[in-house]
């Protein structure tokens, strides 16, 4: 091979390296965003608006399914195909943050004039933190409360303006409202063998002095006993054990359950579907005056540590945060921030429900944060289901869960 050939090859190699670099600088920087938001939910709409601003950053969106968020993200990360930004469920944030998979945003947040930690509710902010640093930005927040059918309360001689306050009152009301002849159960909720089951049960345990690190506390056992009473007496459908919150609340909307424990994501659907008068109440407590607690749900934004454009990705996040005041008005989701007053929508049921949820949110606690949360959660789900199916007593089931969780916590 002659020297000229080498020169040619060298030139070719140089050209192939520099060409894409040139063309890239001429084009926009592309930021990939993954989330589970559908077309009527925030992410795709905010991205559409952002792209119209022509900031030199082009955002591409991909919708992923709830069950796939972590496994997709994980596979993408380990093969180097991760997007720049992803929305993850808040209890799973620590899993990624603790291993440095998410970018530490603390410095950028400190300099930012848009993202300010002091603006956020404590719960959501705790869920993006790990080791004193911020590995993300809360996207939205939610919690659960008690929906109830006012028409049915009236029909059964209960005061529709006095929803049950305590566990005993709740069970008592459920007994009165249950009407097998009409296919009506007193209450509906979800005890499914996935994160939803944990999400629904944990607040009950926390109100009675338990918690994920103390799951077999006396109060937690009592809470599970209440659930067991509800299932054993068929005050709730036995399918509660396999039904998601969305499906469970569907039976409330269609008039087959008189009360439902669910979150604000149901409000819009309920306004459309429910042909009766309904209201929302705070989650009942063990006894009057007891500490309130609630579950905290919804997703956080995070930037993957191996992104090529951290600055641009953060700019996109800043845009999302700057639109937080639209979250409820346009998408029916609660912004995770205490500094945003939510405007009245003009829909009285929606506004009344919202006030209850905002009140309930004050007591919301994040699940974890712990890097091994899925294992902790699985132990809790198994305990709930073992007790509700009568395979173990509530005490035995929660003792076993406590043992499994102890092994995880180390």
């Amino acid at each position, binding site marked *: 091979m002659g020297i000229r050939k080498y020169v040619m090859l060298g030139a070719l190699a140089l050209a192939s390296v520099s060409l894409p670099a040139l063309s890239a600088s001429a084009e926009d920087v592309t930021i990939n965003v993954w989330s589970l938001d559908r077309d009527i939910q925030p992410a795709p709409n905010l991205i559409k608006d952002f792209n119209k601003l022509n900031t030199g950053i082009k955002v591409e969106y991909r919708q992923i399914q709830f069950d796939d968020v972590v*496994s997709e993200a994980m596979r993408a990360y*380990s093969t180097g195909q991760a997007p720049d930004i992803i929305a993850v469920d808040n209890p799973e944030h620590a899993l990624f943050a603790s291993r440095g*998979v998410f970018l530490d945003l603390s410095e950028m947040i400190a300099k930012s004039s848009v993202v300010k930690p002091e603006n956020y509710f404590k719960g959501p902010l705790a869920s993006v933190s790990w080791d004193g640093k911020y590995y993300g930005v809360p996207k939205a927040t939610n919690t659960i409360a008690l929906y109830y059918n006012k028409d049915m309360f009236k029909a059964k001689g209960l005061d529709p303006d006095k929803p049950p306050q305590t566990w005993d009152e709740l069970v008592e009301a459920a007994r009165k409202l249950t009407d097998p002849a009409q296919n009506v159960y007193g209450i509906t909720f979800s005890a499914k*063998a996935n994160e939803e089951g944990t999400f629904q049960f944990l607040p009950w345990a926390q109100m009675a002095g338990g918690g994920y690190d103390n799951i077999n506390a006396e109060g937690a056992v009592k809470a599970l006993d209440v659930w067991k009473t509800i299932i054993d007496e068929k005050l709730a459908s036995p399918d509660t054990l396999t039904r998601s919150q969305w499906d469970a609340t569907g039976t409330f909307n269609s008039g087959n359950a008189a009360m439902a424990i669910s979150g604000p994501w149901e409000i819009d659907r309920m306004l459309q579907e429910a042909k009766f008068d309904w209201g929302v109440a705070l989650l009942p407590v063990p006894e009057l005056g007891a500490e309130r607690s609630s579950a905290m749900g919804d997703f956080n934004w995070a930037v993957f540590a191996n992104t090529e454009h951290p600055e641009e990705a953060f700019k996109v996040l800043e845009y999302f945060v700057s639109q937080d005041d639209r979250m409820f008005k346009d998408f029916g989701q609660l912004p995770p921030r205490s500094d945003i007053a939510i405007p009245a929508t003009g829909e009285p049921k929606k506004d009344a429900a919202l006030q209850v949820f905002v009140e309930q949110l004050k007591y919301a606690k994040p699940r974890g944060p712990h890097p091994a949360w899925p*294992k902790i959660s699985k132990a809790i789900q198994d305990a709930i*289901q073992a007790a509700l199916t009568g395979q173990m007593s509530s005490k035995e089931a929660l003792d076993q869960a406590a043992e499994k969780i102890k092994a995880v916590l180390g």
Partner: protein
Amino acid sequence: MKRILSSITDGRGFDIGLVSLPLAFLFVLSGLPLVYNVVMSFQEVDMFSLGSFWRPFVGLKNYIDLFSQPETWPILLNTAIFVTASIAGQFLIGFGLALFFWVNFPGASWLRGLFLVSWVMPGLVVGAIWNWILSGDFGVLNFLLRETGVISGNIFWRSDPDYSLWAVIIANVWLGTSFNMILLSVGLSGIPKDLYEAAELDGANALQRFWTITLPMMRSTIGAIVALGLIFTLQQFDLFAAITSGGPNNTSNVTQYWAWDLSFRQYDFAKGATISVIMIVFVMFASVVYVRSTRHEVRG
């Protein structure tokens, strides 16, 4: 050099080349992942060490941990029940249908084709439909059973620990029956008609003809179907995900779903791999039995 080349153009080298190509393909696409899976079961793996091969070896720890978990034996038992009942149900109903359509009435082949619809449908769709059918309060199945007086109260197929596994089995039998039927129909049509005519002349009744002609002639087809059935039922995953999610409290959990749950929901990839290794052992055992039972047919 010349000898090697000429052996490729005319001789043993060509045969070896032909065989080694698919072998290499098999090794890369099936063998390596299998070995990788076995190696993983002896390592400590989490989601972030997934991309690298060099991970701490822990010996038999994963196996010991697995078998000290209280749910392991019930789940293995569930798997055995699921596989046996599914194969038996699919085969018996499939065989019955195949015999039925063998009687050539007008429109028989057309109807038989329609049965394949269930086999063509994606598992998740089948799961979603059966999820509604089996629903406790408003399910169609409960409605039918109640109206015909078989049951007095609703059965909570998905949520009652006594029924949850059977809910998935019912759906799986429905899903696999048509495939069994088609394969068995092909086997049936391969039996020469004159055998039956001769037997009939000798005075053999229908049952005798079935036992002495149909079954023996179908032996290799039946062997193949049972082996395929074992593979298909051991892979069945969608129905569990759609109908029960393995619940309540693992009463409908089987190894294949559990392996996924451990790997992709609890991120314990080593344990997920460990269960897969146990499943590989079972399949190997089953395939040895299958190969031995049909060996003389292959040679004959």
